[in-house]
């Protein structure tokens, strides 16, 4: 990412992450401060879904997400502030946690329906955008990157080109190819 394209928050976050990755443990309290967005994002997501998880469940989930983020920390490139990068982890893990909980709750009911010889319908999926995020994880990494910068970070093709060191035409070709790859995954109704 070209520095001129980064916001100052993203630049600061990137420097902080690089320092932690280099083994500077004195920076861990600052990183913990920045990662406070994890439990807060999980709470906001849960509020928007009507409060499915309990407080303890959210706290446990925040810890799981923190572990995942730590293991992927090297992939943070500073193209967005830390919260924007963390968003994907929170959303995915939150959805998985809720799906597990909801499926467990319905297990008895489903088993009873099967015993009665009734068909088992798929649970209605309340995650309108889940397949979009899942699909972006399955298409080409370069294509997904362009799509994320275009739609989620709101950059123009020229800005994306500057950020990635590519010509605008290459960026556009990747965007087009990415959308074409993504489409059938959305039709599948949520890539696993």
């Amino acid at each position, binding site marked *: 990412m070209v520095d001129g394209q980064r916001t100052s928050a993203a630049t600061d976050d990137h420097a902080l992450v690089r320092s932690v990755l280099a083994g500077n443990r004195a920076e861990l309290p600052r990183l913990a401060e920045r990662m406070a967005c994890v*439990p807060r994002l*999980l709470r*906001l997501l849960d509020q928007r879904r009507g409060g499915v998880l309990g407080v303890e469940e959210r706290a446990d989930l925040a810890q799981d997400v923190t572990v995942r983020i730590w293991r992927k920390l090297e992939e943070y490139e500073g193209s967005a502030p830390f*919260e924007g990068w963390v968003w994907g982890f929170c959303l995915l893990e939150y959805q998985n946690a809720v799906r597990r909980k909801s499926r467990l709750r319905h*297990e008895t009911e489903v088993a009873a329906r099967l015993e009665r010889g009734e068909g088992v319908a798929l649970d209605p999926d309340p995650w309108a955008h889940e397949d979009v995020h899942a699909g972006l994880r399955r298409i080409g990494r370069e294509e997904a990157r362009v799509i994320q910068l275009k*739609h989620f970070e709101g950059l123009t093709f020229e800005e994306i080109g500057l950020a990635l060191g590519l010509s605008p035409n290459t960026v*556009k070709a990747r965007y087009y190819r990415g959308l074409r790859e993504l489409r059938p995954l959305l039709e599948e109704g949520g890539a*696993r």
Partner: protein
Amino acid sequence: MSATDRPGEAPRERPHDPRHEERILELLCGDRPEDDAEVRELLRTCPSCRASWRELEETRARLDGAAEERREVLAELGRGTPAAGEERLLDTLQDLAAREPHARRGPLRPGWMVAAAAVLLTGAWAGWRWLRPAEAPRAPTWLGAHGLELLEPRGHVDEYGRFAWTYDGDATAFTLRIYAEEDGRPGALLLEKEGWKDTTWTPAAEGLARLPARIHWEVDALDEFRAPLDSASASASRSSR
């Protein structure tokens, strides 16, 4: 309308040409407006381009929807009060930094020594490649393919019984989930075994009895924080009873 069409008649369709995609790409990226004459003619006469453009628009709208939710939540974030789990963050990070450090520090491993070692290793590897006898190409290795492997049941079996898998990493527990397979995809969750320490599990007889003819099952290998290290899934079917 093209010059070859007659009033009242359906527009004459033309076969798709890969060069059309250039126009669709320009339209998608805003380099041509939708009312551009060439684009309008293309969408009117090429069914493949018409379908492709409709799909691209739908996909773009789905992305916009997902991006909108993200924007809304991130905008709310700044107004939030502390949330459950924040108090554990620093401890968790310090624990992780101790157990899973990203970098090793110290005077014995400065960057130039690592770089020099890399150069030496590359040279040694290149020499070995040059001198060794030719061999048949090896099969590709897929990431994760060697970690967690589901053994049984797979494919068609007479009866479901034991579920078995292997994992060559350091998992502290496994989670096994068995779904009804519907249209080739996992449907309703039927059985779940969480925090299982062994690499085999046999459901109780009543659990086995209620499994349908086709199932999809998956296993997550978990670390001490219950975070997944690896996961794998397989399908199986049994003879109708």
